[in-house]
């Protein structure tokens, strides 16, 4: 977290390069996450519904509670770590709208994580909320990554 106290990141070429490398890996994670989720859990409302509750037509068994809780638990940890580090970099380089963007990112991620167990235990209605908030936080995160890249290449940060 040393980068949070460096006065001019542009002048510190090593730290700037480290942050760019880090941002690139977060971008890779975010994009890969979409592909992995597409092939495993599902990224459309129908696919998520089939995973959670099964599908007789497609001969898919519903996910058991134990596997679901393990999946949810793991997701929470990875998302919180990714978003904490990404927001730390973004807050350091961004000047305007950083509170709004950070709020949008965190709230949409929290909604997606809250809606998963609500969908599993209470109502299918929450699947739509999960899918929308899942894509929302991914889009906001990708925006933050590219914005941070751009700012790190700017004259002074």
């Amino acid at each position, binding site marked *: 977290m040393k980068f*949070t106290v460096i006065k001019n990141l542009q002048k510190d070429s090593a730290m700037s390069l480290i942050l760019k490398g880090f941002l690139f890996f977060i971008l890779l994670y975010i994009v890969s996450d979409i592909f992995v989720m597409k092939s495993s859990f599902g990224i459309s409302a129908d696919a998520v519904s089939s995973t959670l509750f099964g599908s007789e037509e497609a001969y898919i068994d519903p996910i058991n*509670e*134990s596997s679901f*809780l*393990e999946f*949810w*638990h793991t997701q*929470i*940890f990875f*998302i*919180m*770590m990714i*978003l*904490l580090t990404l*927001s*730390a970099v973004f*807050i350091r380089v961004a000047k305007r709208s*950083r*509170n709004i963007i*950070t*709020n949008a990112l*965190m709230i949409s991620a*929290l909604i997606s*994580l*809250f809606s998963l*167990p609500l969908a599993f235990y209470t109502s299918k209605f929450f699947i739509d909320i999960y899918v929308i908030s899942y894509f929302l936080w991914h889009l906001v995160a990708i925006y933050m990554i590219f914005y941070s890249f751009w700012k790190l290449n700017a004259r002074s940060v």
Partner: protein
Amino acid sequence: MQEAYKLSILYYLAFSLLLIVSALMLFEHKIGFSFSGVLEYYTGNEEKFITAQSAGGILKIVLPHIFVFGLFAMVLLHFLVFADLRYKENITLLVYAAFIVALLEIFTPFMIIGGFEFFAYMKLFSFFTFLALLLYISWLLFQSITYS
């Protein structure tokens, strides 16, 4: 500390709370909060068709948790350094307690399958104490951020 960083930490605390809730749900579902539940989960029960855990099986579960417990505790605890100064006197004690209890939580299953049934109590104690410590640290941070 900048306002935006405070916001980021507050959200981290919210995620931590969610992680604690999911850990409780997972523990309750897979193991249970009773002495017999913990014992049966690790040493098995023929009548209930619960197979005993092997050291290799436990190690598979423990391995990611070693890294995750360390990282999670480190991130949460290091925020205390940025928090209000009056909490700094207790930081050393909290750091020791958090890491020692986390170690106990991780390694007690090996003692249970080694025949030391008493460690089933230790498993429950360390699990709840670790979560309680995380909640206490989160509360200190929350107070420090919101009232500063």
